[in-house]
């Protein structure tokens, strides 16, 4: 994902990047590996951030700063915009419906160039329409298919195939 962002869109090298909902930091690490200028990772979960910190040390990444905050707080937290926002938001299927749209709305406010995100293909029309109403120009870069094994208590099947859109939202 990061490789496409870097090579097709020149949105990684020397850019200031925000990883919204960074979790254990996979996207952030990818960004640093491909030459990001600086990366800030925000997540609401302190345990995820601990894991992220550990991963950063293991991979010897030194240009990532982490902040413990919710997505609403993140919208008001920064004085300046970042060049690019990358994210893999929670899809909002069980208890947090619409959370991925909240992430998108906040991300669009915090980016000066572009936002890269993943959303369920089944919500594509809604996502594209909402993004346009917020002034962004969306482009579906790829459609991915994940075979996700059960990870939460409310998952009843052993694994599920899920179709996901990788979308670039141009802000400028």
């Amino acid at each position, binding site marked *: 994902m990061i490789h496409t962002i870097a090579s097709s869109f020149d949105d990684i090298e*020397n850019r*200031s990047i925000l990883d919204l909902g960074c979790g254990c930091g996979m996207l952030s690490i990818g960004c640093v590996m491909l030459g990001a*200028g*600086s990366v*800030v990772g925000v997540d609401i979960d*302190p345990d995820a*951030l601990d894991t992220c*910190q550990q991963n950063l040390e293991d991979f010897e990444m*030194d*240009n990532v*700063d*982490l*902040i*413990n*905050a919710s997505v*609403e*707080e993140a919208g*008001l*937290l*920064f*004085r*300046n915009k970042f060049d690019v926002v990358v994210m893999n938001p929670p899809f909002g299927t069980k208890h947090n419906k619409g959370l991925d749209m909240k992430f998108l709305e906040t991300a669009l406010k915090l980016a000066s160039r572009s936002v890269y995100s993943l959303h369920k293909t089944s919500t594509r029309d809604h996502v594209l329409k909402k993004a346009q109403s917020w002034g962004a120009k969306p482009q579906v870069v790829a459609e991915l298919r994940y075979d996700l094994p059960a990870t939460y208590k409310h998952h009843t099947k052993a694994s599920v195939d899920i179709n996901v859109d990788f979308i670039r939202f141009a802000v400028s």
Partner: protein
Amino acid sequence: MKLLTHNMLTSKAIKQVNTGYPLLIEARDVKVSEVEFNPEFIAKIIPKVDWDCLRRAAEQLGHLDKIPASVPDTYENQQEFLKQAHHVLLEIELINGDLVCPESNRKFPVTDGIPN
């Protein structure tokens, strides 16, 4: 938490706070590390940095001597200046301490480099 990040943070998420900037730093543990110098990136972000805020932050971390008083006009070509800016923005880190909102005096703890 690096000073580059601190330079961007406000406490506007608190209700009734108007500006919430800059956040004061009460430092307990500070670390200096080595980060790869990228002059192109530094030159790009200098215009975004509030230099006074940066100086005050460096002072609160006990590293005022490393930072130039102001940004020279042709900073893009001055390697020495860019190197000093790089050092202050990315290599000095607050590990443990508090960030204080200038308006509400509310404290945000920084633990292990991560502000809450």
